[in-house]
Protein backbone atom coordinates (compact mmCIF):
# COMPACT_ATOMS: atom_id res chain seq x y z
CA UNK A 1 0.00 0.00 0.00
CA UNK A 2 2.83 2.33 0.93
CA UNK A 3 4.53 1.56 -2.33
CA UNK A 4 1.31 2.22 -4.22
CA UNK A 5 0.78 5.55 -2.47
CA UNK A 6 4.33 6.71 -3.05
CA UNK A 7 4.05 5.65 -6.68
CA UNK A 8 0.85 7.65 -6.99
CA UNK A 9 2.58 10.62 -5.40
CA UNK A 10 5.51 10.32 -7.78
CA UNK A 11 3.14 10.20 -10.75
CA UNK A 12 1.25 13.26 -9.56
CA UNK A 13 4.54 15.11 -9.12
CA UNK A 14 5.52 14.19 -12.64
CA UNK A 15 2.21 15.37 -14.00
CA UNK A 16 2.24 18.62 -12.11
CA UNK A 17 5.59 19.56 -13.66
CA UNK A 18 4.54 18.67 -17.19
CA UNK A 19 3.34 21.64 -19.24
CA UNK A 20 1.52 19.35 -21.64
CA UNK A 21 -1.05 18.74 -18.91
CA UNK A 22 -3.84 21.30 -18.93
CA UNK A 23 -4.20 23.30 -15.77
CA UNK A 24 -7.73 24.37 -15.06
CA UNK A 25 -7.95 27.10 -12.44
CA UNK A 26 -11.19 28.60 -11.31
CA UNK A 27 -11.28 32.37 -11.51
CA UNK A 28 -13.06 32.49 -8.15
CA UNK A 29 -10.15 30.82 -6.43
CA UNK A 30 -7.67 33.54 -7.41
CA UNK A 31 -7.01 36.41 -4.96
CA UNK A 32 -8.82 39.65 -5.83
CA UNK A 33 -6.90 42.77 -6.80
CA UNK A 34 -8.19 46.31 -7.36
CA UNK A 35 -6.24 49.20 -8.87
CA UNK A 36 -6.47 52.77 -7.54
CA UNK A 37 -5.16 55.85 -9.36
CA UNK A 38 -3.84 58.81 -7.34
CA UNK A 39 -2.39 60.82 -10.22
CA UNK A 40 -2.61 64.62 -10.12
CA UNK A 41 -0.67 65.15 -13.35
CA UNK A 42 -1.56 64.17 -16.95
CA UNK A 43 -4.98 64.45 -18.55
CA UNK A 44 -7.84 62.04 -17.95
CA UNK A 45 -7.43 60.32 -21.32
CA UNK A 46 -3.83 59.41 -20.59
CA UNK A 47 -4.62 58.42 -17.02
CA UNK A 48 -7.31 55.99 -18.19
CA UNK A 49 -4.99 54.69 -20.92
CA UNK A 50 -2.31 53.89 -18.35
CA UNK A 51 -4.87 52.30 -16.03
CA UNK A 52 -6.16 50.05 -18.81
CA UNK A 53 -2.65 49.01 -19.82
CA UNK A 54 -1.80 48.13 -16.23
CA UNK A 55 -5.05 46.20 -15.68
CA UNK A 56 -4.40 44.31 -18.92
CA UNK A 57 -0.89 43.38 -17.73
CA UNK A 58 -2.24 42.23 -14.37
CA UNK A 59 -4.80 40.07 -16.15
CA UNK A 60 -2.09 38.51 -18.30
CA UNK A 61 -0.26 37.54 -15.09
CA UNK A 62 -3.23 35.22 -14.50
CA UNK A 63 -2.67 35.14 -10.75
CA UNK A 64 -5.35 37.65 -9.71
CA UNK A 65 -9.03 38.19 -10.23
CA UNK A 66 -8.53 41.82 -11.32
CA UNK A 67 -11.27 44.40 -10.72
CA UNK A 68 -11.74 46.51 -13.86
CA UNK A 69 -13.29 49.56 -12.14
CA UNK A 70 -11.29 52.77 -12.33
CA UNK A 71 -11.17 54.53 -8.95
CA UNK A 72 -9.43 57.71 -7.89
CA UNK A 73 -8.11 58.16 -4.36
CA UNK A 74 -5.51 60.21 -2.52
CA UNK A 75 -2.11 58.45 -2.60
CA UNK A 76 -1.60 58.93 1.13
CA UNK A 77 -5.13 57.95 2.18
CA UNK A 78 -4.84 55.60 5.13
CA UNK A 79 -7.48 53.17 3.90
CA UNK A 80 -8.45 51.82 0.51
CA UNK A 81 -11.52 53.03 -1.45
CA UNK A 82 -14.78 51.89 0.16
CA UNK A 83 -15.60 49.72 -2.85
CA UNK A 84 -12.25 47.96 -2.48
CA UNK A 85 -12.39 47.15 1.21
CA UNK A 86 -13.02 43.45 0.60
CA UNK A 87 -10.22 43.06 -1.93
CA UNK A 88 -7.28 40.81 -1.06
CA UNK A 89 -4.89 43.30 -2.65
CA UNK A 90 -5.09 46.93 -3.74
CA UNK A 91 -2.49 48.40 -6.09
CA UNK A 92 -2.34 52.18 -5.70
CA UNK A 93 -0.17 54.34 -7.94
CA UNK A 94 0.39 57.90 -9.04
CA UNK A 95 1.85 59.14 -12.31
CA UNK A 96 4.55 61.80 -12.02
CA UNK A 97 6.01 64.27 -14.48
CA UNK A 98 9.21 66.24 -13.91
CA UNK A 99 10.44 69.41 -15.53
CA UNK A 100 12.46 67.52 -18.15
CA UNK A 101 9.37 65.65 -19.31
CA UNK A 102 10.41 62.35 -17.75
CA UNK A 103 7.63 59.97 -16.88
CA UNK A 104 7.52 58.43 -13.42
CA UNK A 105 5.28 56.20 -11.36
CA UNK A 106 5.10 55.58 -7.63
CA UNK A 107 3.30 52.43 -6.61
CA UNK A 108 2.32 50.63 -3.46
CA UNK A 109 0.49 47.39 -2.86
CA UNK A 110 -1.86 47.30 0.11
CA UNK A 111 -3.12 44.12 1.73
CA UNK A 112 -5.11 43.89 4.96
CA UNK A 113 -4.59 47.62 5.63
CA UNK A 114 -0.81 47.29 5.40
CA UNK A 115 1.54 48.42 2.67
CA UNK A 116 3.32 45.27 1.56
CA UNK A 117 5.27 46.54 -1.46
CA UNK A 118 6.47 49.94 -2.71
CA UNK A 119 8.31 50.74 -5.94
CA UNK A 120 9.24 53.74 -8.06
CA UNK A 121 9.81 53.86 -11.80
CA UNK A 122 11.13 56.52 -14.13
CA UNK A 123 11.69 56.70 -17.87
CA UNK A 124 12.67 59.71 -19.94
CA UNK A 125 9.80 59.53 -22.39
CA UNK A 126 6.02 59.27 -21.87
CA UNK A 127 5.71 57.36 -25.16
CA UNK A 128 7.09 54.22 -23.55
CA UNK A 129 4.77 54.32 -20.55
CA UNK A 130 3.61 50.77 -21.33
CA UNK A 131 7.05 49.39 -20.42
CA UNK A 132 6.59 50.92 -16.95
CA UNK A 133 3.19 49.20 -16.62
CA UNK A 134 4.81 45.92 -17.75
CA UNK A 135 7.59 46.39 -15.16
CA UNK A 136 5.03 47.06 -12.42
CA UNK A 137 3.16 43.86 -13.27
CA UNK A 138 6.48 41.98 -13.40
CA UNK A 139 7.42 43.19 -9.92
CA UNK A 140 4.02 42.32 -8.46
CA UNK A 141 4.30 38.85 -9.98
CA UNK A 142 7.73 38.45 -8.33
CA UNK A 143 6.38 39.76 -5.02
CA UNK A 144 3.65 37.11 -5.14
CA UNK A 145 6.34 34.46 -5.46
CA UNK A 146 5.28 33.33 -8.93
CA UNK A 147 7.63 32.05 -11.61
CA UNK A 148 9.33 35.02 -13.34
CA UNK A 149 7.59 36.54 -16.37
CA UNK A 150 10.78 37.83 -17.93
CA UNK A 151 9.14 37.97 -21.35
CA UNK A 152 6.74 40.68 -20.20
CA UNK A 153 9.53 43.26 -20.15
CA UNK A 154 11.19 42.02 -23.31
CA UNK A 155 10.71 43.40 -26.77
CA UNK A 156 9.03 41.65 -29.65
CA UNK A 157 10.42 41.94 -33.17
CA UNK A 158 8.22 41.16 -36.14
CA UNK A 159 7.98 41.72 -39.87
CA UNK A 160 4.73 42.83 -41.42
CA UNK A 161 3.73 42.87 -45.05
CA UNK A 162 2.51 46.26 -46.21
CA UNK A 163 2.00 45.25 -49.86
CA UNK A 164 3.33 42.49 -52.14
CA UNK A 165 7.16 42.45 -51.84
CA UNK A 166 7.07 45.30 -49.34
CA UNK A 167 7.53 44.81 -45.63
CA UNK A 168 8.61 46.52 -42.45
CA UNK A 169 10.49 45.20 -39.45
CA UNK A 170 9.01 46.52 -36.24
CA UNK A 171 10.11 46.40 -32.60
CA UNK A 172 7.29 46.47 -30.09
CA UNK A 173 6.30 45.54 -26.58
CA UNK A 174 4.40 42.28 -26.18
CA UNK A 175 1.00 44.03 -26.42
CA UNK A 176 1.90 45.94 -29.64
CA UNK A 177 0.94 49.22 -27.95
CA UNK A 178 4.48 50.49 -28.50
CA UNK A 179 5.72 50.11 -32.06
CA UNK A 180 8.92 51.34 -33.63
CA UNK A 181 9.69 50.62 -37.27
CA UNK A 182 13.37 49.74 -37.44
CA UNK A 183 13.62 48.63 -41.08
CA UNK A 184 11.31 50.38 -43.52
CA UNK A 185 11.00 49.92 -47.24
CA UNK A 186 12.27 46.95 -49.19
CA UNK A 187 11.41 43.31 -48.71
CA UNK A 188 12.84 42.18 -45.38
CA UNK A 189 11.46 39.24 -43.42
CA UNK A 190 12.17 36.66 -40.68
CA UNK A 191 13.70 38.94 -38.03
CA UNK A 192 15.39 37.06 -35.18
CA UNK A 193 17.01 38.48 -32.03
CA UNK A 194 20.77 37.89 -32.13
CA UNK A 195 21.26 37.62 -28.36
CA UNK A 196 19.49 37.49 -25.01
CA UNK A 197 20.08 41.19 -24.47
CA UNK A 198 18.14 41.99 -27.64
CA UNK A 199 20.82 44.47 -28.71
CA UNK A 200 20.97 43.19 -32.29
CA UNK A 201 18.98 41.10 -34.72
CA UNK A 202 19.25 39.07 -37.92
CA UNK A 203 16.83 39.23 -40.83
CA UNK A 204 16.46 37.98 -44.39
CA UNK A 205 16.65 40.55 -47.15
CA UNK A 206 15.05 39.72 -50.49
CA UNK A 207 16.36 42.94 -52.03
CA UNK A 208 19.67 41.45 -53.11
CA UNK A 209 20.25 39.16 -56.08
CA UNK A 210 20.18 36.19 -53.69
CA UNK A 211 18.34 35.92 -50.36
CA UNK A 212 20.75 37.45 -47.85
CA UNK A 213 21.04 37.21 -44.08
CA UNK A 214 21.82 40.58 -42.53
CA UNK A 215 22.63 41.69 -39.00
CA UNK A 216 21.77 45.01 -37.40
CA UNK A 217 23.23 46.32 -34.15
CA UNK A 218 20.43 48.43 -32.66
CA UNK A 219 22.64 50.63 -30.52
CA UNK A 220 24.85 51.72 -33.41
CA UNK A 221 22.38 51.21 -36.26
CA UNK A 222 25.12 49.47 -38.24
CA UNK A 223 24.16 46.73 -40.64
CA UNK A 224 26.34 43.93 -42.01
CA UNK A 225 25.88 41.04 -44.39
CA UNK A 226 26.26 37.60 -42.77
CA UNK A 227 25.71 35.23 -45.68
CA UNK A 228 23.80 34.72 -48.92
CA UNK A 229 22.36 31.59 -50.47
CA UNK A 230 20.54 30.87 -53.65
CA UNK A 231 16.90 29.93 -53.06
CA UNK A 232 16.52 30.33 -49.29
CA UNK A 233 18.33 31.99 -46.44
CA UNK A 234 16.60 32.18 -43.08
CA UNK A 235 17.95 32.35 -39.54
CA UNK A 236 15.68 29.83 -37.80
CA UNK A 237 17.16 29.94 -34.31
CA UNK A 238 19.94 31.45 -32.21
CA UNK A 239 21.49 29.49 -29.36
CA UNK A 240 21.56 30.73 -25.75
CA UNK A 241 24.85 32.61 -25.93
CA UNK A 242 24.35 33.84 -29.49
CA UNK A 243 27.42 32.00 -30.80
CA UNK A 244 25.61 29.51 -33.05
CA UNK A 245 22.78 29.90 -35.53
CA UNK A 246 20.55 27.37 -37.22
CA UNK A 247 20.10 28.51 -40.81
CA UNK A 248 17.89 27.20 -43.57
CA UNK A 249 19.74 27.50 -46.86
CA UNK A 250 19.30 25.97 -50.29
CA UNK A 251 22.55 26.49 -52.23
CA UNK A 252 21.60 23.77 -54.74
CA UNK A 253 17.85 24.27 -54.66
CA UNK A 254 17.35 21.80 -51.77
CA UNK A 255 16.38 23.45 -48.49
CA UNK A 256 18.52 22.06 -45.64
CA UNK A 257 19.35 22.95 -42.04
CA UNK A 258 22.86 24.28 -41.39
CA UNK A 259 24.71 25.04 -38.15
CA UNK A 260 26.50 28.37 -38.47
CA UNK A 261 29.32 29.43 -36.16
CA UNK A 262 29.15 33.21 -35.69
CA UNK A 263 32.84 33.57 -34.83
CA UNK A 264 34.44 31.30 -37.44
CA UNK A 265 31.68 31.97 -40.03
CA UNK A 266 31.66 28.28 -40.92
CA UNK A 267 28.37 26.66 -41.92
CA UNK A 268 27.99 22.92 -41.37
CA UNK A 269 25.22 21.09 -43.19
CA UNK A 270 23.17 19.07 -40.69
CA UNK A 271 20.51 17.50 -42.92
CA UNK A 272 20.91 15.97 -46.35
CA UNK A 273 17.50 14.61 -47.27
CA UNK A 274 16.56 15.35 -50.88
CA UNK A 275 13.25 17.00 -49.97
CA UNK A 276 12.44 19.85 -47.61
CA UNK A 277 14.31 20.25 -44.30
CA UNK A 278 13.67 23.62 -42.61
CA UNK A 279 13.02 25.47 -39.33
CA UNK A 280 15.87 24.07 -37.16
CA UNK A 281 15.44 24.72 -33.43
CA UNK A 282 17.98 24.12 -30.66
CA UNK A 283 16.90 21.70 -27.92
CA UNK A 284 18.57 20.27 -24.82
CA UNK A 285 21.43 17.75 -25.02
CA UNK A 286 22.60 18.70 -28.50
CA UNK A 287 19.29 17.79 -30.09
CA UNK A 288 17.78 19.85 -32.89
CA UNK A 289 14.13 19.82 -33.89
CA UNK A 290 13.25 20.62 -37.48
CA UNK A 291 10.46 20.34 -40.05
CA UNK A 292 10.84 17.82 -42.87
CA UNK A 293 8.68 16.21 -45.55
CA UNK A 294 10.74 12.99 -45.52
CA UNK A 295 7.61 10.91 -44.84
CA UNK A 296 5.73 12.56 -47.70
CA UNK A 297 4.09 15.25 -45.57
CA UNK A 298 5.50 17.97 -43.31
CA UNK A 299 6.22 16.82 -39.78
CA UNK A 300 8.52 17.54 -36.86
CA UNK A 301 11.71 15.50 -36.48
CA UNK A 302 14.52 15.42 -33.95
CA UNK A 303 18.18 15.27 -34.94
CA UNK A 304 20.90 14.25 -32.52
CA UNK A 305 23.69 16.53 -33.70
CA UNK A 306 26.33 14.29 -32.10
CA UNK A 307 25.30 10.97 -33.62
CA UNK A 308 23.47 12.34 -36.65
CA UNK A 309 20.48 10.09 -35.87
CA UNK A 310 17.07 11.44 -36.94
CA UNK A 311 13.78 10.35 -35.36
CA UNK A 312 10.18 11.42 -35.74
CA UNK A 313 9.27 13.73 -32.85
CA UNK A 314 5.54 14.21 -33.44
CA UNK A 315 3.23 11.28 -34.13
CA UNK A 316 -0.03 13.17 -34.47
CA UNK A 317 -1.28 15.04 -37.54
CA UNK A 318 -0.42 14.80 -41.24
CA UNK A 319 0.60 18.40 -41.81
CA UNK A 320 2.83 19.87 -39.09
CA UNK A 321 4.81 22.61 -40.77
CA UNK A 322 6.41 24.82 -38.06
CA UNK A 323 7.86 24.39 -34.58
CA UNK A 324 9.60 26.08 -31.67
CA UNK A 325 11.38 24.43 -28.75
CA UNK A 326 12.15 25.02 -25.10
CA UNK A 327 14.36 22.36 -23.49
CA UNK A 328 12.40 19.14 -24.19
CA UNK A 329 9.15 20.82 -25.16
CA UNK A 330 8.06 21.34 -28.75
CA UNK A 331 5.20 23.57 -29.79
CA UNK A 332 4.15 22.98 -33.37
CA UNK A 333 1.66 24.19 -35.94
CA UNK A 334 -0.73 21.58 -37.32
CA UNK A 335 -3.03 21.94 -40.28
CA UNK A 336 -6.41 20.65 -39.04
CA UNK A 337 -8.31 20.93 -42.32
CA UNK A 338 -7.32 20.60 -45.94
CA UNK A 339 -10.08 22.54 -47.65
CA UNK A 340 -9.28 23.66 -51.15
CA UNK A 341 -12.32 25.91 -51.44
CA UNK A 342 -12.72 27.50 -48.01
CA UNK A 343 -10.78 28.77 -45.03
CA UNK A 344 -8.51 26.34 -43.24
CA UNK A 345 -7.74 25.90 -39.57
CA UNK A 346 -4.21 25.65 -38.21
CA UNK A 347 -3.79 25.00 -34.50
CA UNK A 348 -0.84 24.96 -32.16
CA UNK A 349 -0.06 21.87 -30.12
CA UNK A 350 2.40 21.28 -27.31
CA UNK A 351 4.30 18.06 -26.66
CA UNK A 352 7.13 16.95 -24.44
CA UNK A 353 9.69 14.56 -25.90
CA UNK A 354 9.60 12.73 -22.56
CA UNK A 355 5.88 11.97 -22.37
CA UNK A 356 3.15 10.94 -24.80
CA UNK A 357 0.79 13.80 -24.00
CA UNK A 358 -0.35 16.28 -26.64
CA UNK A 359 -2.01 19.52 -25.64
CA UNK A 360 -3.91 21.64 -28.14
CA UNK A 361 -3.27 25.31 -27.43
CA UNK A 362 -5.56 27.12 -29.89
CA UNK A 363 -9.05 26.48 -31.28
CA UNK A 364 -9.90 28.55 -34.37
CA UNK A 365 -8.25 30.47 -37.21
CA UNK A 366 -4.77 30.28 -38.69
CA UNK A 367 -2.35 30.07 -35.76
CA UNK A 368 1.30 30.04 -36.72
CA UNK A 369 4.83 31.11 -35.85
CA UNK A 370 4.79 29.75 -32.31
CA UNK A 371 7.81 30.86 -30.32
CA UNK A 372 8.62 30.02 -26.71
CA UNK A 373 9.55 32.84 -24.38
CA UNK A 374 13.13 32.87 -23.17
CA UNK A 375 12.06 31.23 -19.88
CA UNK A 376 9.59 28.78 -21.44
CA UNK A 377 6.76 30.36 -19.42
CA UNK A 378 4.75 31.53 -22.42
CA UNK A 379 4.38 31.09 -26.17
CA UNK A 380 3.95 33.96 -28.56
CA UNK A 381 2.29 33.31 -31.91
CA UNK A 382 0.57 34.93 -34.87
CA UNK A 383 -3.15 34.51 -35.32
CA UNK A 384 -4.89 35.36 -38.58
CA UNK A 385 -8.62 35.09 -38.17
CA UNK A 386 -11.48 36.74 -40.07
CA UNK A 387 -9.15 39.13 -41.87
CA UNK A 388 -7.46 40.31 -38.66
CA UNK A 389 -3.79 39.69 -37.83
CA UNK A 390 -3.01 39.52 -34.10
CA UNK A 391 -0.17 38.58 -31.84
CA UNK A 392 -1.20 35.99 -29.28
CA UNK A 393 0.30 35.08 -25.92
CA UNK A 394 -0.32 31.67 -24.38
CA UNK A 395 0.33 31.34 -20.64
CA UNK A 396 1.08 27.63 -20.66
CA UNK A 397 0.82 26.96 -16.96
CA UNK A 398 -2.28 29.11 -16.54
CA UNK A 399 -4.14 27.74 -19.54
CA UNK A 400 -4.95 31.22 -20.86
CA UNK A 401 -4.57 32.89 -24.26
CA UNK A 402 -4.45 36.63 -24.90
CA UNK A 403 -4.71 38.39 -28.28
CA UNK A 404 -3.35 41.78 -29.29
CA UNK A 405 -4.60 42.89 -32.74
CA UNK A 406 -2.38 44.55 -35.32
CA UNK A 407 -4.03 47.68 -36.69
CA UNK A 408 -2.74 47.35 -40.23
CA UNK A 409 -0.72 44.97 -42.35
CA UNK A 410 -0.21 41.27 -41.92
CA UNK A 411 2.40 39.84 -39.58
CA UNK A 412 4.84 37.70 -41.58
CA UNK A 413 7.04 36.34 -38.78
CA UNK A 414 7.87 37.08 -35.18
CA UNK A 415 10.50 36.64 -32.48
CA UNK A 416 10.84 37.74 -28.84
Amino acid sequence: MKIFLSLLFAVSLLLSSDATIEVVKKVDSLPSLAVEDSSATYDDTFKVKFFKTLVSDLNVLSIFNVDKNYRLINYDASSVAVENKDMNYVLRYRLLKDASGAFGVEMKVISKNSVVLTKEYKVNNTKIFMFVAHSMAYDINSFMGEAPVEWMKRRVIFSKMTSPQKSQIVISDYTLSYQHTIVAGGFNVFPKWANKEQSAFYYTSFDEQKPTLKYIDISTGKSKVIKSSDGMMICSDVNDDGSKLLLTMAPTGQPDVFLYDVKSKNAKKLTDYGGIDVNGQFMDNGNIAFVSDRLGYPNIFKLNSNSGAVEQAVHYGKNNSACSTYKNYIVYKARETSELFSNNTFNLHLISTETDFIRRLTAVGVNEFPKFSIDGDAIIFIKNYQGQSSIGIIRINHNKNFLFPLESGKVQSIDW
Partner: protein
Amino acid sequence: MKNIVMSSVVAAVLLFSGCSDKDPKVEDNSGAAQAVAAAPVATSVPSSRSESVSSAAVESESEMIARLQKELATINFDFDKFNINAANQPKVPANAEVLKTKASKFSTKLEGNCDEWGSDEYNIALGLKRANEVKKALSAEGVNADKITMVSYGESNPVCTEKTKECWAQNRRVDFKLLP
Protein backbone atom coordinates in the same frame (compact mmCIF):
# COMPACT_ATOMS: atom_id res chain seq x y z
CA MET B 1 16.11 46.85 -6.73
CA LYS B 2 14.65 50.20 -7.56
CA ASN B 3 17.84 51.26 -9.25
CA ILE B 4 18.01 48.06 -11.22
CA VAL B 5 14.47 48.47 -12.44
CA MET B 6 15.04 52.08 -13.35
CA SER B 7 18.33 51.48 -15.05
CA SER B 8 16.92 48.59 -17.05
CA VAL B 9 14.01 50.72 -18.20
CA VAL B 10 16.33 53.61 -18.92
CA ALA B 11 18.54 51.25 -20.90
CA ALA B 12 15.50 50.33 -22.93
CA VAL B 13 14.78 54.00 -23.50
CA LEU B 14 18.33 54.63 -24.58
CA LEU B 15 18.08 51.76 -26.99
CA PHE B 16 14.85 53.01 -28.41
CA SER B 17 15.91 56.61 -28.66
CA GLY B 18 19.24 55.43 -29.98
CA CYS B 19 17.72 53.54 -32.84
CA SER B 20 15.17 56.10 -33.89
CA ASP B 21 17.63 58.18 -35.82
CA LYS B 22 19.81 55.30 -36.96
CA ASP B 23 17.53 53.18 -38.99
CA PRO B 24 19.47 50.93 -41.32
CA LYS B 25 19.98 52.18 -44.80
CA VAL B 26 17.27 50.97 -47.04
CA GLU B 27 18.49 50.21 -50.49
CA ASP B 28 15.29 49.80 -52.35
CA ASN B 29 12.87 52.35 -53.70
CA SER B 30 11.69 55.89 -53.29
CA GLY B 31 8.79 54.78 -51.11
CA ALA B 32 11.33 53.88 -48.47
CA ALA B 33 12.40 57.47 -48.10
CA GLN B 34 8.89 58.45 -47.08
CA ALA B 35 8.55 55.51 -44.73
CA VAL B 36 11.67 56.50 -42.81
CA ALA B 37 10.97 60.20 -42.95
CA ALA B 38 12.35 60.59 -39.43
CA ALA B 39 15.65 59.14 -40.48
CA PRO B 40 17.86 61.02 -42.91
CA VAL B 41 18.52 58.04 -45.09
CA ALA B 42 20.00 58.42 -48.52
CA THR B 43 17.94 56.34 -50.84
CA SER B 44 19.35 55.38 -54.17
CA VAL B 45 17.24 54.03 -56.95
CA PRO B 46 18.78 51.12 -58.87
CA SER B 47 19.99 52.38 -62.19
CA SER B 48 18.05 49.78 -64.12
CA ARG B 49 14.81 51.34 -62.87
CA SER B 50 15.72 54.97 -63.19
CA GLU B 51 17.08 55.15 -66.67
CA SER B 52 15.18 57.52 -68.84
CA VAL B 53 14.67 57.19 -72.53
CA SER B 54 17.20 59.35 -74.29
CA SER B 55 16.06 58.49 -77.73
CA ALA B 56 12.87 56.95 -78.98
CA ALA B 57 14.85 54.80 -81.41
CA VAL B 58 17.20 53.19 -78.84
CA GLU B 59 15.81 50.68 -76.44
CA SER B 60 17.46 50.81 -73.02
CA GLU B 61 18.45 47.65 -71.20
CA SER B 62 15.65 48.03 -68.69
CA GLU B 63 13.11 48.46 -71.48
CA MET B 64 14.46 45.40 -73.19
CA ILE B 65 14.18 43.42 -69.96
CA ALA B 66 10.62 44.63 -69.42
CA ARG B 67 9.67 43.69 -72.99
CA LEU B 68 11.25 40.23 -72.86
CA GLN B 69 9.81 39.46 -69.43
CA LYS B 70 6.36 39.81 -70.95
CA GLU B 71 7.22 36.97 -73.28
CA LEU B 72 8.07 34.67 -70.37
CA ALA B 73 4.87 32.99 -69.20
CA THR B 74 4.25 32.49 -65.50
CA ILE B 75 3.99 28.80 -64.58
CA ASN B 76 1.12 27.91 -62.25
CA PHE B 77 0.87 24.97 -59.87
CA ASP B 78 -1.78 22.74 -58.33
CA PHE B 79 -2.74 22.97 -54.67
CA ASP B 80 0.06 21.65 -52.43
CA LYS B 81 2.05 20.43 -55.46
CA PHE B 82 5.37 21.43 -56.96
CA ASN B 83 5.42 19.35 -60.14
CA ILE B 84 4.60 21.14 -63.41
CA ASN B 85 1.16 19.97 -64.52
CA ALA B 86 0.16 19.11 -68.10
CA ALA B 87 -1.55 22.45 -68.72
CA ASN B 88 1.63 24.33 -67.84
CA GLN B 89 4.15 22.00 -69.52
CA PRO B 90 4.04 23.77 -72.93
CA LYS B 91 5.15 27.01 -71.30
CA VAL B 92 8.56 25.51 -70.45
CA PRO B 93 9.97 25.03 -74.00
CA ALA B 94 8.46 28.36 -75.07
CA ASN B 95 10.14 30.20 -72.19
CA ALA B 96 13.37 28.25 -72.72
CA GLU B 97 13.44 29.39 -76.33
CA VAL B 98 13.22 33.06 -75.29
CA LEU B 99 15.95 32.58 -72.67
CA LYS B 100 18.30 30.85 -75.16
CA THR B 101 17.84 33.39 -77.92
CA LYS B 102 16.47 36.90 -77.39
CA ALA B 103 17.29 37.01 -73.66
CA SER B 104 20.55 35.06 -73.80
CA LYS B 105 22.66 37.92 -72.44
CA PHE B 106 20.62 38.14 -69.23
CA SER B 107 20.52 35.96 -66.13
CA THR B 108 17.19 34.55 -65.04
CA LYS B 109 15.72 34.75 -61.57
CA LEU B 110 12.95 32.26 -60.86
CA GLU B 111 10.60 33.50 -58.15
CA GLY B 112 8.57 30.80 -56.41
CA ASN B 113 5.30 31.80 -54.78
CA CYS B 114 2.57 30.13 -52.74
CA ASP B 115 -1.07 30.72 -51.81
CA GLU B 116 -1.92 32.35 -48.52
CA TRP B 117 -1.80 29.30 -46.26
CA GLY B 118 1.17 30.07 -44.11
CA SER B 119 4.18 32.35 -44.15
CA ASP B 120 6.46 29.92 -42.35
CA GLU B 121 9.68 28.41 -43.63
CA TYR B 122 7.98 25.30 -44.95
CA ASN B 123 5.79 27.37 -47.25
CA ILE B 124 8.84 29.28 -48.47
CA ALA B 125 10.52 25.92 -49.13
CA LEU B 126 7.49 24.75 -51.09
CA GLY B 127 7.77 27.85 -53.30
CA LEU B 128 11.45 27.07 -53.79
CA LYS B 129 10.72 23.47 -54.80
CA ARG B 130 8.44 24.90 -57.49
CA ALA B 131 11.20 27.19 -58.72
CA ASN B 132 13.65 24.28 -58.67
CA GLU B 133 11.32 22.13 -60.78
CA VAL B 134 11.15 24.92 -63.33
CA LYS B 135 14.94 25.28 -63.25
CA LYS B 136 15.39 21.56 -63.92
CA ALA B 137 12.86 21.67 -66.76
CA LEU B 138 14.57 24.70 -68.33
CA SER B 139 17.94 23.00 -68.00
CA ALA B 140 16.56 19.95 -69.80
CA GLU B 141 15.53 22.31 -72.60
CA GLY B 142 19.11 23.50 -72.93
CA VAL B 143 19.08 26.66 -70.81
CA ASN B 144 22.39 27.23 -68.99
CA ALA B 145 21.61 26.38 -65.33
CA ASP B 146 24.52 28.54 -64.15
CA LYS B 147 22.62 31.62 -65.32
CA ILE B 148 19.54 30.77 -63.26
CA THR B 149 19.10 31.91 -59.67
CA MET B 150 16.10 31.13 -57.49
CA VAL B 151 14.20 32.71 -54.66
CA SER B 152 10.97 31.89 -52.88
CA TYR B 153 8.67 34.51 -51.41
CA GLY B 154 6.15 32.07 -49.94
CA GLU B 155 2.86 33.88 -49.61
CA SER B 156 4.41 37.36 -49.41
CA ASN B 157 4.13 38.25 -53.08
CA PRO B 158 0.52 37.62 -54.14
CA VAL B 159 -0.76 38.80 -57.52
CA CYS B 160 -4.31 38.41 -56.24
CA THR B 161 -5.54 39.08 -52.72
CA GLU B 162 -9.14 37.95 -52.87
CA LYS B 163 -10.14 34.90 -50.87
CA THR B 164 -11.27 32.72 -53.75
CA LYS B 165 -9.94 29.47 -55.16
CA GLU B 166 -9.21 31.21 -58.50
CA CYS B 167 -7.17 33.79 -56.66
CA TRP B 168 -5.21 31.23 -54.64
CA ALA B 169 -4.54 29.30 -57.87
CA GLN B 170 -3.06 32.44 -59.46
CA ASN B 171 -0.72 32.87 -56.51
CA ARG B 172 0.72 29.34 -56.72
CA ARG B 173 3.23 30.20 -59.41
CA VAL B 174 6.79 30.71 -60.58
CA ASP B 175 7.55 34.08 -62.18
CA PHE B 176 10.48 34.75 -64.52
CA LYS B 177 12.61 37.84 -63.94
CA LEU B 178 15.55 38.84 -66.13
CA LEU B 179 18.65 40.33 -64.52
CA PRO B 180 21.30 42.38 -66.33
